[in-house]
């Protein structure tokens, strides 16, 4: 055990954790909007729209995240037309490519979580809203969405932890996130166990925090439906 290396690498790894957290939070926020959008499309009565939304979530949940990042980072740059548009400003940055891949990926999972949450809302709530003459837009934003959020909290907490682990793949497209820096230190010092303990400890600490925050929110907003 090389305690000195562990102490020395800790600040470096902690610094890299910032990038991990940035990637995580930005893609979770974007993914939440994407997921909400596709969950609404999934509940559309039009079969074509429904199939499209199902196809999206099927493709993104059926393929590894690594493939998705590689398609976006290495693949999209190949399309000549894209290089001339303003999108290229975004797509040439590995940081944004990773965020796009993560958001689309977590969006697919989130859409499934939200869809099942919407579908388990008791029809009585909606009927009550309708019979009170509340417009359907307000029923959706004020009744359906809050209940769906509360019901999907446990599953969404799992998704946040999965995404935290998923951000480690950013290191494959040259980003120096926590895993990227850990790999760099391992490959320069050849002391994998020590670095694993420190980096793994940081990850575990983050999962621990996320787990407890979700637990707290569940308790705070939990109600019997």
């Amino acid at each position, binding site marked *: 055990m090389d305690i000195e290396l562990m102490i020395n690498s800790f600040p470096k790894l902690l610094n890299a954790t910032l990038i991990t957290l940035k990637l995580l939070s930005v893609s979770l926020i974007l993914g939440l909007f994407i997921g909400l959008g596709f969950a609404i499309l999934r509940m559309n009565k039009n079969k074509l729209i429904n199939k499209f939304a199902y196809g999206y979530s099927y493709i993104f949940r*059926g393929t590894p995240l690594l*493939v998705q990042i590689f398609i976006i980072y290495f693949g999209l740059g190949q399309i000549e037309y894209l290089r001339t548009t303003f999108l290229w400003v975004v797509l040439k940055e590995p940081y944004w490519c990773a965020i796009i891949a993560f958001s689309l990926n977590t969006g697919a999972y989130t859409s499934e979580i939200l869809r099942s949450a919407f579908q388990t809302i008791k029809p009585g709530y909606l009927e009550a809203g309708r019979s009170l003459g509340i417009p359907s837009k307000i029923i959706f934003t004020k009744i359906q969405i809050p209940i769906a959020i509360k019901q999907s909290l446990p599953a969404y907490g799992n998704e946040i932890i999965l995404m935290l*682990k998923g951000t*480690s793949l950013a290191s494959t497209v040259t980003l120096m996130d926590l*895993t990227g820096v850990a790999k760099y230190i391992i490959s320069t010092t050849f002391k994998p166990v020590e670095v694993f303990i420190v*980096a793994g400890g940081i*990850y575990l600490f983050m999962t621990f925090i996320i787990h407890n925050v979700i637990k707290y929110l569940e308790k705070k907003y939990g109600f019997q439906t």
Partner: protein
Amino acid sequence: MELLYFGDKGWGDELFFATLMTIAVSITAMIIGFLFAALFTPLKLSNNKVLNSIGNAYTTVIRGVPELLVIYLFFFGGSGAIMFVASIFGYNDYIEINAFLTGSFSIGIISGAYSTEVFRGALQSIDKGQFEAAKVLGFNKYIYFFKIILPQMLRLAIPNLSNVWQITLKDTSLISVTGLVEIMRQSYIAAGSTRDPLFFYSFAAVLYLMLTFLSMQLLNRLETKYSKGY
């Protein structure tokens, strides 16, 4: 399309064998995972506090740390550990371990943590009366476990195990970083030499989709077979 020709002209045969490699690694990892689950599930259910916390530590650490980090640990640490053991026996040359074994082993440890949770949940949802009845009837340990508990546990575990299989299958893409030539690595090589990454990575995505689709069909059939009432 000529990129996919078999033989020297295209990458069809390479990608075909890479797909077989992905399947082989996934199955090996799944089996290694079952071995780990068989070891750790009893620990997680044990009343002994020390054993219990060992079981919990395994599932918490593995499920809380990114797969890639675990793979790096075994990829960089594996040969070192084996060389250390070999040096005790007086063998000091460099030993390079097989990428297939390291890959399957590290994915297996990860999939084992998920399998452990699945088996624990399945065991806990078996009716207590079944355990008691088996004990009261005085069956020996073999019949108690293999004829009474295991069949009931498997039937409860199969739906969740198919989730674990999906996760394992997708995780195998990560061992491409160790150089094992599976779908992802082969696509990387092909994309590099033809300068057509969009095509090859999209094709890799299609291959993975096919694998998940086919295995889901198979597992669903298994699920209906075993969920027939008793």
